[in-house]
């Protein structure tokens, strides 16, 4: 049997002995080394690890700086001091807290809650007890450091919010929560993990560009004794501790104009809603305001639960970015779409008239015009200029909802614009199929008149509204709005550059049709009888459309004065300037406006923004002209020439 065995296996039996010897020798070698390190030299290494506790000091990286289109700093950083608690080095927690509370005049239970929040994390990781210490507090803590082992003051660069940082657009920073930490570290962080206490972007650009903005933390190692004081010792033996400098985050260059943003913010002050300013030539967002806002500084420092609840329960939702996430019925602003559809479908031409008696009857339902006495006989120009509802009721009924929807979709409505900021909403372009799908109810004929004046089911975000008017201004190019123009890393290399991209080109509508609607919209503002005359800007042409959206049907009670806040009309205004080859498109949405409708409340704001745009352009051109005397003609002159062209037409 052994013979068979040998024949089958070619393994040389004597080698097994050698192998066993080899294993034994290796094992004894390792065992000897283990004994040598752990027992013979054990005390030495034990001492090294005990006495020479090395502490890793994290060097936080500053976030990237956010610049506006002209290189002005929108949001930068400055150093802040934090009080930090390292559980491992704490000897007597209660005494420590007692001392701290006496030094800083903070009740000890505040510290306890901070500790409870950080429960379960390893003992060597610091816990932030108090953020943003004043210089005075820092010096007090440093002076009493001997009595406070395990307590440290750490300096960290943090966001330095000025008074007019747009909170929704820029976003805010918040301490990372444990679940988010896990998720981020598994998905995106790579070799630069997040730690508890790190601040992450929670909204707007800070969130969307988090991976670019956040830097890479560095660290250095120091040696400390049992009291947590820095010592020398290990380094004397010739060892150098590694230290890695922090790498700052990448800087963003926005398309925002800081000055214009401030003007828009000031002009809109006191209202709830949103202002969006776009460049119709490429989709750059020049300004974006969403009101009411919140204080990003307070968010960074950590909000008390009461403040948080107060913000959450605010009726106008301060956290919602209304520029892309707020959906509003567009009101009469939508009439431009209906006008484009009707012209393109041949239902009306510029001469076709309807008679407006102040109301419109469809079946047994009565639809009122906002002007109860009627506009008389109106053609398209007049209908838009005076915002005649009856004209558009009739046009809308003749068009039918699906044909309106076709053109609205062609203009890019009812779908996400892809700005990529915050919770973008697509809006709603109602159609008969949509209603059947969503409401499980067929389209009723009575729905159409409402839709054709932008009420009822229609919903649009302010960004879409601005983009719609930009599209009308540039004769059918639907640009994708964008806000970050360029990203440069800490050594100044450009690592991202945005190329303007078209969402679609509107081939369904002829340029002449756009021209006709543009002329009508110009009349809305430039004509002394137009509803948008408050948006007039001396020296340039402005084209636009007002909108006032009834929130509830107020039958006969048209006196807005004594209606409760949440029942007041939304005031809308969308405009572009100049009327031909527009450089700026503006959309204003004021929720439940207390002043009045679009013409009275929103149009003046648009006027201010447009005026500021030309003024700023003028000033900048003058600045350049001062530097180089042989500069080109001022924008004012250009604007005037546009106006002349317009009149010649």
């Amino acid at each position, binding site marked *: 049997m052994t013979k068979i065995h040998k024949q089958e*296996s070619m393994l040389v039996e004597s080698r097994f002995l050698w192998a066993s010897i080899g*294993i034994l020798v290796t094992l004894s070698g390792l065992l000897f080394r283990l004994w040598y390190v*752990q027992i013979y030299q*054990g005390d030495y290494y034990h001492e*090294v*690890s005990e006495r020479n506790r090395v502490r890793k000091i994290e060097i936080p990286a500053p976030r990237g700086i956010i610049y506006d289109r002209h290189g002005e700093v929108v949001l930068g950083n400055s150093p802040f001091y934090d009080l930090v608690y390292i559980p491992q080095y704490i000897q007597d927690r209660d005494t420590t807290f007692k001392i701290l509370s006496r030094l800083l005049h903070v009740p000890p239970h505040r510290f306890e809650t901070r500790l409870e929040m950080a429960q379960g994390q*390893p003992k060597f990781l610091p816990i932030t007890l108090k953020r943003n210490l004043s210089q005075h507090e820092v010096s007090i803590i440093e002076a009493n450091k001997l009595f406070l082992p395990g307590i440290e003051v750490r300096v960290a660069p943090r966001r330095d919010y000025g008074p007019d940082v747009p909170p929704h657009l820029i976003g805010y920073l918040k301490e990372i929560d444990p679940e988010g930490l*896990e998720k981020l570290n598994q998905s995106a962080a790579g070799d630069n993990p997040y730690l508890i206490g790190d601040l992450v972007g929670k909204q707007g650009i800070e969130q969307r560009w988090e991976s670019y903005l956040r830097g890479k933390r560095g660290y250095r190692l120091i040696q400390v004794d049992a009291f947590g004081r820095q010592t020398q010792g290990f380094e004397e033996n010739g060892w150098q501790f590694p230290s890695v400098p922090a790498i700052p985050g990448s800087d963003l260059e926005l398309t925002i104009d800081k000055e214009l943003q401030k003007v828009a913010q000031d002009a809109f002050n006191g209202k709830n809603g949103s202002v969006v300013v776009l460049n119709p030539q490429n989709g750059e967002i020049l300004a974006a305001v969403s009101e009411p806002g919140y204080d990003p500084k307070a968010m960074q420092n950590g909000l008390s639960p009461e403040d948080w609840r107060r913000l959450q329960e605010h009726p106008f939702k301060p956290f919602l970015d209304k520029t892309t996430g707020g959906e509003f019925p567009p009101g009469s602003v939508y009439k431009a779409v209906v006008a484009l559809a009707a012209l393109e479908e041949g239902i009306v031409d510029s001469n076709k008239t309807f008679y407006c008696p102040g109301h419109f009857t469809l079946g047994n339902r009565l639809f009122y015009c906002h002007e109860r006495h009627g506009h008389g006989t109106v053609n398209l120009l007049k209908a838009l200029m005076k915002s005649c509802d009856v004209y558009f009721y009739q046009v809308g009924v003749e068009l039918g909802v699906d044909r309106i929807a076709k053109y609205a979709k062609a203009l890019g409505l009812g779908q996400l614009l892809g700005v990529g900021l915050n919770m973008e909403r697509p809006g709603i372009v109602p159609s008969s199929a949509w209603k059947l799908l969503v409401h499980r109810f067929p389209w009723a004929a009575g729905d159409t008149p409402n839709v054709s004046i932008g009420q009822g089911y229609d919903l649009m975000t302010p960004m879409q509204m601005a983009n719609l008017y930009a599209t009308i201004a540039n004769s059918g190019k639907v640009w994708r709005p964008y806000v970050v123009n360029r990203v440069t890393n800490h050594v100044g290399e450009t690592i991202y550059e945005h190329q303007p991209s078209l969402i679609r080109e509107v081939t369904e509508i002829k340029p002449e049709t756009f021209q006709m609607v543009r002329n009508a919209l110009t009349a809305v503002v430039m004509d002394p009888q137009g509803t948008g005359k408050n948006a007039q800007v001396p020296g340039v042409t402005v084209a636009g459309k007002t909108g006032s959206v009834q929130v509830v049907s107020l039958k006969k009670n048209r006196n807005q004065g004594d209606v409760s806040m949440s029942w007041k009309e939304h005031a809308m205004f969308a405009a572009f300037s100049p009327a031909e080859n527009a450089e700026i498109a503006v959309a204003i949405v004021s929720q439940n406006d207390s002043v009045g409708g679009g013409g009275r409340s929103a149009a003046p704001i648009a006027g201010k923004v447009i005026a500021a745009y030309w003024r700023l352009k003028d000033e900048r051109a003058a600045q350049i002209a001062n530097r180089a005397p042989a500069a080109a003609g001022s924008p004012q002159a250009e604007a005037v020439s546009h106006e002349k062209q317009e009149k010649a037409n």
Partner: protein
Amino acid sequence: MRSKKKQTEGVFLMPEGDLKRPYSPQGVLICLLFAVLLGIGLINLFSASIGASFFWTQLRNLTITFTAFVAFGWLIPIKRVQAYAYWFAALVSLLLIVVLSTGRIAGGAQRWINLGPVSFQPSEFAKLTVVLCVSRFFASNRQDAPYRLRDLTPLIGIIGVIFLLIFAQPDFGTAGVCAIIAVCQIAFIRVDLRSLAIVVLSAPIVAAIGWNTVLMPYQKLRVLNLLNPNLDPQNTGYHALQSLIAVGSGGVFGKGYMQGTQAHLRFLPERHTDFIFSVFAEEHGFWGSVIIFIGFGLLTYIALDIAKHAKDTFTGLLAVGLGTLIFVEFAINIAMVMGMFPVVGIPLPFFSYGSSAMLTVCVSLGLLISINRNNTGVSKR
């Protein structure tokens, strides 16, 4: 022939004749060691991965790797393994090429393949491939005369391709382990003395050329660093030094579970993967470590014992190779942690975090059990 008689009796009672199978302590011992080492390894990983989710990920991956252990141990016949050995080699080579071309950059080298939620390291499987290839080669090319270099050319070709593919990642450590395993396996075969002499004499020349042309600067630094730890303490020496302090400070009985300061102060780099033994040695001291040494020594000895009683060349060489695989990884890793060997990125079986390495170990032990079952008669009909 006595057994044959028993077999027939057995057939009368039960078709497989399992009742009369001679008792084999090896299989039971392997299962026992598997459980003990894996248990200690997991408990240790829990301590090493505080503040991170490595432990839970490892536990989750264990369900897959344990299935592989059972499958290779009891379900897949060893003959099937032999038949598919080359196919497996081809697959792994393909994966290695994929890694080279598209692999995820991590840890300074391209070692991973990322398939959505799972990412794996084909170079870990390559060790197993080498074991299988060598075994299969000698099983299919048997000759009575000692093997000459000429006879071994196809084998050297296969191993060489795998070696170079791993080396190019670059993963010097894994490539080296593959080579060592192959050499150890071939050492159990009669090889022509003259061929051996040629190889041994040319080895220094190849090594010298390799040092000057192939080795990456960081790999050279690691080797030099071993010779003189003070050379570059900030980078390469730092790992070795911190790990040495961790092991040394453990002392006789260690600092206690979850009490290791070195490890928990985050001084130990890679403390959940390559340097995991330093966490264990710091927390459990000399006697704790001795238990681990005994465990691995016993496991290797059992593998050799199984190889000794193997019925054919394939199973014999396979058992030798698997034993070598586990022992070499163990020895290199421990030597590395204790500052006796350059830092080469070899995981410690059962202890290190990483599903690919764990899968390799589980499959290895499964195969050993399968070989043992093959030895003790199930298929001896």
